[in-house]
């Protein structure tokens, strides 16, 4: 297991380097430059100085290598300094956002908690709804509950989140006035009251995204359960005189969870990437909306860095999914 993990981590390095190159070049080749963000009233000499300070005049391979160095060396060092109060990274050029002219990573750090609380909760809620629905739908296949679950999943699958989101806003925020229309990023939870307020403003984005996630996962769970319920070992379990609860929730579920856990792990990076629309819709000031703002503002370093972080997360959770699979399925041996 350890050697497998190490080997996979080593293999991830060239993969990630290639991805980083593609991301860097794609974003770099896109039309628009930081120069366009500088007001026209700025004198040309000053403009040239600004551009030089941003390092945009260097040839592309130099900039790529510099960015890599910044990403993998300077920024972690800065993080280290920030945690332990040291100053190893002093004087090193960090990745600077064109828009705010400040380092990219602290900006991302500010946005991350928003995303994690709202979108992360939505994913968790989605999974927690999906598993019991999937299990029970399979156990009572073709029952009213199952039909209802199928319909629910169809809706969750086919209706895009910007539609359900808008619908929720119209019904629950505008119509019924239960929840605020906009997410207040400045709210900090200090007491019971602000906690309730936070819950209320999270409710709609969590429901919208949660439903979308639950739709897919409940289907996976259901079909995995159904597949296993027809297996011979289930008949053996019944022949032993075990009750249905043990048969379903021990024998069948334990086998059915193997592929589902993998799917859930593979879906985690989408918490960061796939929530862009929902974040924008509800005004959640997270990573997703940071990316949109950066794209609009031609903030190339920000876009490159965010895109690369997504890529790293995807590669990482692929590895995690593989490892989980091996842990859950004794037939798989990694080495």
């Amino acid at each position, binding site marked *: 297991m350890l050697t497998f993990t190490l080997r996979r981590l080593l293999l991830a390095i060239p993969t990630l380097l290639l991805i980083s190159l593609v991301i860097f070049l794609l974003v770099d080749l896109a039309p628009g430059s930081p120069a366009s963000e500088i007001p026209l009233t700025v004198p040309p000499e000053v403009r040239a100085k600004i551009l030089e300070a941003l390092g945009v005049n260097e040839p592309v391979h130099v900039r790529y290598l510099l960015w890599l160095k910044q990403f993998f060396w300077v920024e972690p060092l800065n993080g280290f300094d920030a945690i332990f109060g040291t100053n190893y990274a002093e004087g090193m050029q960090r990745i600077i956002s064109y828009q705010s002219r400040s380092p990219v990573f602290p900006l991302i750090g500010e946005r991350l908690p928003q995303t994690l609380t709202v979108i992360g909760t939505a994913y968790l809620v989605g999974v927690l709804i999906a598993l019991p629905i999937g299990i029970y739908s399979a156990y009572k296949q073709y029952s009213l509950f199952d039909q209802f679950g199928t319909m629910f999943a169809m809706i969750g699958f086919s209706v895009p989140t910007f539609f359900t989101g808008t619908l929720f806003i119209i019904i629950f925020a505008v119509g019924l006035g239960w929840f605020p229309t906009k997410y207040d990023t400045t709210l900090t939870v200090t007491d019971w009251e602000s906690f309730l307020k936070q819950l209320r403003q999270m409710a709609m984005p969590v429901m919208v995204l949660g439903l979308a996630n639950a739709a897919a996962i409940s289907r996976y769970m259901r079909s995995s359960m159904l597949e296993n319920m027809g297996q011979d070992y289930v*008949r053996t379990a019944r*022949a032993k005189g075990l009750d249905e609860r043990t048969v379903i929730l021990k024998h069948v579920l334990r086998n059915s969870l193997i592929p589902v856990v993998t799917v859930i792990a593979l879906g985690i990076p989408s918490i960061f990437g796939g929530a862009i629309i929902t974040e924008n819709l509800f005004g959640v000031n997270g990573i997703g909306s940071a990316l949109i703002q950066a794209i609009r503002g031609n903030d190339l370093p920000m876009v490159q860095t965010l895109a690369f972080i997504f890529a790293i997360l995807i590669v990482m959770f692929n590895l995690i999914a593989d490892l989980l699979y091996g842990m859950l399925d004794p037939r798989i041996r990694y080495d």
Partner: protein
Amino acid sequence: MADQALPVLEVRGLETVFRTRGGEIHAVNDVSFHLERGELLGVVGESGSGKSVTMMSLIRLLPAPPADIRKGEVLLNGEDLLKMTPDALRQVRGAKVGFVFQDPMTSLNPVFTIGDQVMEPLRKHMGLSKAEAAVRAAELLELVGISDAKSRLKSYPHQFSGGMRQRVMIAIALACDPDVLIADEPTTALDVTIQAQILELVKELRQKLGMAIIWITHDLGVIAGIADRVLVMYGGQVVEQAPVAELFANPQHPYTRALLQTVPKITGVREARLKVIEGQPPILTAALSACPFRARCEYRHAACDAANPARRAVDGQPVGRGHDVACHWQAPAAQEAVHA
């Protein structure tokens, strides 16, 4: 304790139907038989003749729907399993009736250890603690011939060969010292040498433990070596029933006779090619109104198309107790039959 004179198992008029989209399939039609204490009853018939469905109906192991047990009684020590509540039935399964299935490769749960799976019935039916169950499970594995049993408890099924897994299945079935062991073609999926080993094991366990056994196979050769009495099934019904020596010496039903001709003789003399029974077993989409074997039978006559023959005594004893057959045709006397 149950009455020792009573058969341990008595099945009367069992009928099982599958309701499928294409209509009903009458898989088991009026099957009656009994099993004495300590007896080994062999059940033979081609695949599709209803052996598995019959045996699984006994402890209601078939998924319902589509399976529907229409009629019958299954008396285990005098108590009707078909009338029991699901809860009461679960006290019987795995405790009084042990089941070994055909395919050992898929019959064990791949994600739990062997120990866990052997311990399950012990904990459920005998109320053993985890530690007690582990000790007993190791004893059981030793009993079925798995060496180094204690450390093997922690193994997973995929670490065992097919023969070993079938031994584990037997250990599970015997865990709670059942009155009846039902083995549904337990060696069909195994190599010939492993088959022989499993057969030896069952003979030995029978000596040691004394449970009654129903041994299903499509191989009459196997039956000859181990059974006390034989049930021949065809078209979801019992077509012939007799003590094993009698059946081999004096087969009555054309189907039984044909089956016997497909068995290699152990005389050492090389015989002509083994006979194959031409045709396919019927798929029974309606209740039987004629003999199910008639399409393949060389003795077919008008009566065979008119009615499904009832079981009749061959040797004067009541049907089910001695030798009986369900056939309109009268077989010639024993002497001729042997050389038929």
